[in-house]
């Protein structure tokens, strides 16, 4: 039994694994993450729920070598931006794990267990090759 998502509004965990909870506005034609009452790029308020693709490519990545305040997970860890598959373009901030994560590297979504904000185990999202 995996732990609960680190935040219920951004992540769902079920038998299929981890899903990023996004939104899509027919008016703006744009996808976004996490789901917002309005399209964050245009203000359009006709946002529909959208499960985002579990695959994409690394756009940028770095390694965090010092634990930031409020973080009790392992260090170092990868952090970067992934361009999700599908159209129109959508880049999401994500933890990254694995070697050789240069720009353009295909990656898939997974769950990663971390101490949550209350110290209890929680599940967040990570992309890896």
């Amino acid at each position, binding site marked *: 039994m995996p732990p609960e998502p*680190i*935040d219920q509004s*951004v992540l769902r965990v079920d038998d299929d694994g981890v899903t990023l909870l*996004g939104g899509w506005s027919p008016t703006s034609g*744009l996808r*976004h*993450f*996490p789901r917002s009452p309005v399209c*964050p*790029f*245009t203000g359009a308020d006709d946002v529909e729920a959208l499960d985002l693709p579990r695959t994409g490519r690394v756009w*940028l*990545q*770095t*390694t*965090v*070598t*010092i634990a*930031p*305040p*409020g*973080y*009790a*997970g392992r260090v170092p*860890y990868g*952090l*970067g*931006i992934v361009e999700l598959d599908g159209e*129109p*373009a*959508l*880049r*999401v*901030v994500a*933890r990254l794990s694995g070697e050789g994560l240069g*720009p353009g590297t295909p990656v898939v979504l997974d769950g990663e267990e*971390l*101490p*949550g*904000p209350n110290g209890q185990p*929680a599940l*967040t999202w990570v992309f890896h090759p």
Partner: protein
Amino acid sequence: MSEVRITGVGLHPFGRFDGLTGTDMGVTAVRAALDDAGVGVHEMQAAFCGTAYGGVAAGHRVLSALAGTGIPIYDVEAGCASGGAALQLGAASIESGQHDRVLVFGIEKMPKGIIRSSFFAPWQEAAGLSPAPAYFALRAQRLLSDTGLTVDHLAQVVVKNRRHGVANPDAMFRKAVTTEEVLAARMICEPLTLFMLCSPNEGGAAVVLERSDKGVRLAGISLRSHLPGNVLGEDSPLCGIEDSGVTPPTTLAAGDAYTQAGLGPTDVDVVECQDTDAARELLAWAELGLCAAGEQGAILAGDEAVIGGRLPINPSGGLLSKGEPLGASALGQVVELVRQLRGAAGDRQVERARVGLAHVIGRGANACVTVLVG
């Protein structure tokens, strides 16, 4: 012609000061600014205090330590641009005719290490999504890949600013460094080493603004926020779309400030700009219109941005030398520029400086650009 002028400036050095509170440092800076202007606190008609971590009524605590004046005291928070926001509000209160003389100051006393900010939800912190240096690093990588600039150029920015900082007695770091030392320093987030990142710290800065025909003229000032779309924006979104064509807030603010001043980038003689990290300074040069994207390498190679060069940038040593006390940093830039425009900057004086530009950008994303004319 009677205009908004800066008639007094004061500073508490930026650094680490055990035993001193932010209030103490604010009092020092305000007293120095009042003395410089030759006025007393009872002659102030309003006060505007920039601070991000000062807590409730931080400005009131500083003024109360000087005298109970009964004047309105506004505490202003706009992340790294807090002091700029306070300055803009103070200037507007004079331009509107509401006041003739006001006090603007900024204070901060921050813990060591990576800045903690209530900007992020607790779950974002727990997920490791909040470290500012990581976002600086991603922005730096994009700059390098887009422009052909290299980590050597990032190191050269540090070398330049730290060399300038040697001559600034109010700076936290006053030792020059070499390119090799910068590159060999501890890697914080690839490609940024420890020396390429400024230190959050402590300090205070203050200015007296007056409707006057004497003093350094506040010719233009603008605070702007972000437009949507750029995942690398200082508003730190969790997603973005194609970012080409998204005008950064620095460019928006600079456009306003240049228009107000009736001046353009080619008129600027000296610049104090946000060097939270080395890449941020190089981005700012282009965003402020001081050069085209990709020209930064040639400017560095030609020593054009050093004191004595064509356009000295961060003659104070910048945040890389001074550290960044958030609420005080923008006003610290203004204090530096006023001294430069007065010809009173000592060993770091920029010759024949008439027009100065100050720039800050940070969490929010808030950017503030100020144009001063001596």
